[in-house]
């Protein structure tokens, strides 16, 4: 049997893992029985790493060392506006990395963003392994459709650090459409509206015969999601508190974290009720040891007013997607809602109004993306599924030309895989290197687009100017990831390319982070084993000690009885010593001894 491939929806707020069982994908619940796991990572005072619900629970008391919404930072450059924004609002500390990238400081260590994401991926992997009962090494990971190459590459790096072979990166809305239409033999044009915690995507797809899912257009905003709705509520609370007490709650990390929590809770509640109470006693203390409380009522109407423009922005983006697809709104035959935010009534209403139809109720907004990823994974490695996914590149790819202009090579919404070649010539005699700046974006001005890297063709053959012609191929693969290769047209030789100025991690960095992650996993598996043994040992010890008086009563008089009892005492002591020393091997041995002792004691008591 081919190895199972898991599908992971690595969300801004929540992550979800699914796997194909037979012909249907299923979501795998975590140990707590939840189908989604918060995308939160924390490091405790004792240096212990926490991921998921357990990290979320301690977020308020450990705000500075709890990372949430790391996805908003992945693949971004230090000087980007989004990072500036996160710097202002995050309760954890964000610092500049060595490649003008972003690092996160937790306790005394700094982590790259892919590393933080890898911790979540690792958690999802463990959830799957526990469920399946065997190791998992292959995964399909989803990303927002509007992610650029840097963000995709960084996500892939996160997978690698987690020790996962990410066999494919797919777009979240596309994955959702797979789960919606897989095996149903549909023939229709659908729109997928995905508003999650951090990003907004809209994709228009044609689903048709032979299991083909073809994306016609996709667009979005990678910095528009539930977090921004929460921020509006926080602003509202902070401002009114300032007016009342002249205190800026933002200055206090713990207060900020509590506000964040309360805001999200209120937002979710207002999806089902018309008004809710936000109650945060002892939110802050003033200089004179006097505690202040925050108590306010938020109505759905006020919330809708605070976030109206955000909802409108998503509608404008929907318009754009239809324009790009050259389709009229009446040609869309079904609308699929994805992401927790689509539970908000004002969003449902906006979508219904815009598309002129009620959205489909057939998919679960939190699970559908992971399900789709699992379907894609199975379709790739198993031949039996008739399914083809044709996705597009969300951004135009091009190079910088004279006067800092952007020369487009591959337009937006081109079906991938795709490639384009261009010939470069030398402009000086004996020129040995040519520099190409590759970028993605929609602006005519190069500096308004996202620089993917400087590709330097090196070691060119020496010849008079214009005599060396290098054919450079720009390729976007099915992951939506860009690669560039080059060959000398005359000699046909492949040309080496040096890539610089990317914000991504180097291979060496990835390798060392991978090693760290592996060490952590070994340690963690070891800790888990030790923890299990400890619990087992402790209950055995308790049982043995409980039986002690009875055994003494029955055989305490005999020599062999006294021997057995002192031996049992020694085992209990050795067990406690092994626990104290964190000695797994020793503990394992003692557990076996304890089991034998317990059996014997029980036998003695029973025979009496």
């Amino acid at each position, binding site marked *: 049997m081919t190895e199972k491939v898991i599908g992971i929806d690595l969300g801004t707020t929540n992550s979800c893992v699914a796997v194909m069982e037979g012909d249907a994908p299923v979501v795998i619940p975590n140990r707590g029985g939840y189908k989604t796991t918060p995308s939160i990572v924390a490091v405790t005072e004792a240096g212990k790493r926490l991921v998921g619900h357990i990290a979320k629970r301690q977020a308020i008391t450990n705000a500075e060392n709890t990372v949430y919404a790391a996805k908003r930072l992945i693949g971004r450059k230090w000087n980007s506006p989004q990072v500036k924004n996160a710097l202002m609002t995050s309760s954890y500390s964000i610092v500049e990395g060595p490649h003008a990238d972003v690092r996160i400081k937790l306790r005394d260590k700094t982590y790259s963003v892919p590393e933080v994401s890898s911790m979540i991926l690792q958690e999802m992997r463990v959830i799957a392994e526990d469920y399946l009962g065997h190791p998992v090494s292959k995964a399909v990971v989803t990303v927002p459709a509007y992610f650029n190459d840097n963000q995709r590459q960084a996500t892939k790096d996160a997978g690698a650090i987690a020790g996962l072979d990410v*066999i494919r990166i797919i777009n979240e809305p596309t994955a959702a459409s797979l789960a919606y239409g897989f095996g149903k033999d549909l023939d229709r044009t659908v729109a997928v509206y995905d508003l999650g915690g951090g990003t907004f995507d809209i994709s228009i797809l*044609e689903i*048709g*015969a*032979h*299991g*083909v899912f*073809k994306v016609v257009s996709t667009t979005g905003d990678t910095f528009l999601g539930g977090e921004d709705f929460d921020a509006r509520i926080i602003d509202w609370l902070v401002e009114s508190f300032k007016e009342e007490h002249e205190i800026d709650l933002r200055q206090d990390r713990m207060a900020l974290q509590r506000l964040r929590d309360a805001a999200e809770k209120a937002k979710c509640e207002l999806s089902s009720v018309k008004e809710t109470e936000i109650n945060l006693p002892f939110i802050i203390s003033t200089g004179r040891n006097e505690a202040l409380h925050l108590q306010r009522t938020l109505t759905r109407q006020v919330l809708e007013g605070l976030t109206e423009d955000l909802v409108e922005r998503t509608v404008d983006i929907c318009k754009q997607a239809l324009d790009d697809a*050259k389709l009229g709104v009446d040609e869309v035959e079904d609308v699929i809602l994805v992401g927790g935010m689509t539970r908000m009534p004002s969003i449902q209403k906006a979508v219904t109004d815009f598309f002129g139809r009620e959205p489909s109720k057939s998919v679960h907004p939190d699970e559908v993306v992971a399900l789709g990823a699992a379907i894609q994974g199975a*379709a*790739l*490695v198993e031949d039996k599924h*008739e399914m*083809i*996914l*044709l996705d597009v590149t969300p951004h135009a790819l091009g190079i910088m030309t*004279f*006067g800092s*202009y952007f020369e487009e090579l591959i337009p937006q919404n081109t*079906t991938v*895989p*795709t*490639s384009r070649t*261009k*010939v470069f*010539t*030398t*402009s*000086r005699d004996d020129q040995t290197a040519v520099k190409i700046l590759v970028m993605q974006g929609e602006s005519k001005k190069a500096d308004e687009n996202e620089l993917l890297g400087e590709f330097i063709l090196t070691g060119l053959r020496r010849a*008079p*100017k*214009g005599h060396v*012609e290098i054919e450079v191929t720009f390729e976007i693969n*099915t992951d939506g990831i860009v690669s560039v290769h080059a060959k000398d047209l005359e000699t046909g030789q492949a040309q080496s390319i040096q890539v610089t100025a990317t914000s991504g991690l180097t291979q060496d960095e990835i390798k060392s982070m991978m090693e760290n992650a592996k060490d952590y996993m070994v340690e963690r598996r070891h800790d888990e084993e030790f923890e299990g043994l400890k619990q087992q040992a402790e209950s055995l010890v308790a049982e043995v000690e409980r039986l002690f008086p009875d055994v003494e009563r029955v055989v305490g008089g005999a020599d062999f009885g006294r021997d057995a009892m002192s031996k049992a005492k020694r085992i209990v002591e050795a067990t406690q010593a092994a626990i104290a020393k964190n000695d797994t091997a020793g503990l394992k041995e003692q557990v076996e001894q304890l089991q034998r002792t317990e059996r014997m004691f029980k036998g003695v008591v029973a025979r009496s």
Partner: protein
Amino acid sequence: MPPSEEGQLPCPVAGVDMRSLPIGPEEAFVLTRVDGRSSEADIAAATGLDPGRVLQSLRRLVELGAVRYDKVAPSSPPKHERSSVPPGVRISHPVIETKPVQHPDAEHPAAALYDPAELDEDVDLDLPRRRKVLDYFYRLDTATHYELLEVSTQSEKKEIKDAYFKIVGVFHPDKYYGKNLGTFKTKLERVFQRLTEAQEVLSRKATRDEYDAYLESQKRTKRLEQAFRGQSTELEAVRRRIEQEARISDRASHAPPSQSTPPASDPEERRRSLARKLRGSLAPPARNSAPPPEVSRAAIQEHVADELKRRYESRLSQARESQVKKYIEAADASMATRDVISAANALRIAVTLAPDDAALKARFDDAQEKASALLADTYLEQAKYEETNKHWAEAAATYEKVSRGKPSANVFDKVASCLYEGNGDLRKAGDMARKAVALAPKSVEPRLTLAKIYVKAGMKESALAEFERISQMAPGDDTVKDWIKRLKRGEV
């Protein structure tokens, strides 16, 4: 062969089927421009070929008997039907019908296009699959979007989508995940890309209309090009038909002319038979009176033969006249539907059959001029489509064709910039850009193209000089200033 002597021009030799000649495209191209009126220099100008190469081609064509040098009186009518414009072909010919040629290997239309050894590559694909990939891959440049998707030009959007969805599974790389595909990988991807382009173009009304118009104009120009090649055959067929008609009506009333007097198709032979005819008409009338006894048997026989010949000739000229009339009618009909190209083509045949009709000649010249302009317009549409779709090499070639019918600064500039964009022949691009600049020395656009070509060719000084000229002409342009700055700093 030295350049032609004073008063001698290359002329096409009648009745030579161009397709049967062992010549290459360049010679064929030269041959199509040989019309008995153009000098080698004219031909070089018309074809855009180097004069030396034109001479070389002409030499070979003379060797092959397809072209001869002839003295031409300035007022004499053209020696033959060829001219600088490819004639149109009417779909319904007055005389012969064209039948589409059935492809010998209809099942694998591309089979002849690749080396079968390519099928032997060691890859994880079975033979039918490999064959399919190659069949598609090697037809990418010639097949239309419709042909690739195997849909008709009338197919609805839905049919096109279904056809695409059906075929795309064969060519999408995901179907071969983890398999060794060797050189088939890039082939698959190329086919996939093209199929996708085909579906996308055909499934949107605007792009499909554009594409249809492009195909239509391509078909038109192709027809014209074909007509070029088919010209002598058609003319031959008409001539044969004329002779056949003359003979058939002959047979109806008389014995057929003896085998020894074949119909005269060669002008020399025709002249000789005319001489004989004249001699015969001087002889005493032989029709109703018995031959005088003193006349020898041989003389009588000759007389009878001459008489038969005379009648045959007259029927021949009648048949010819009727064909000329048919062609003129066909031309009128074509003109009525504004099909200038077919009209010019029909008139061309008429003129060849009746070379002494000056009025007809004038009409033909007029139609030809119109056709030439129309053809240039058709090519222009085609070129624009190719340009907007970034098929640079094709666009450059088509713009060049436009430039032959309607030369202008803009068109030369287009040839140059398409060559530039498509990484084509930079020297030629430079020539074209210079032509454009020469025609419109005051406009900026061609100069900008030229300057960029200089940059690309590494001719920094020329580029700088050109940019400075542009900068004087358009002092406000920051991009040009930027170029100059960078060129001076040596950043290019």
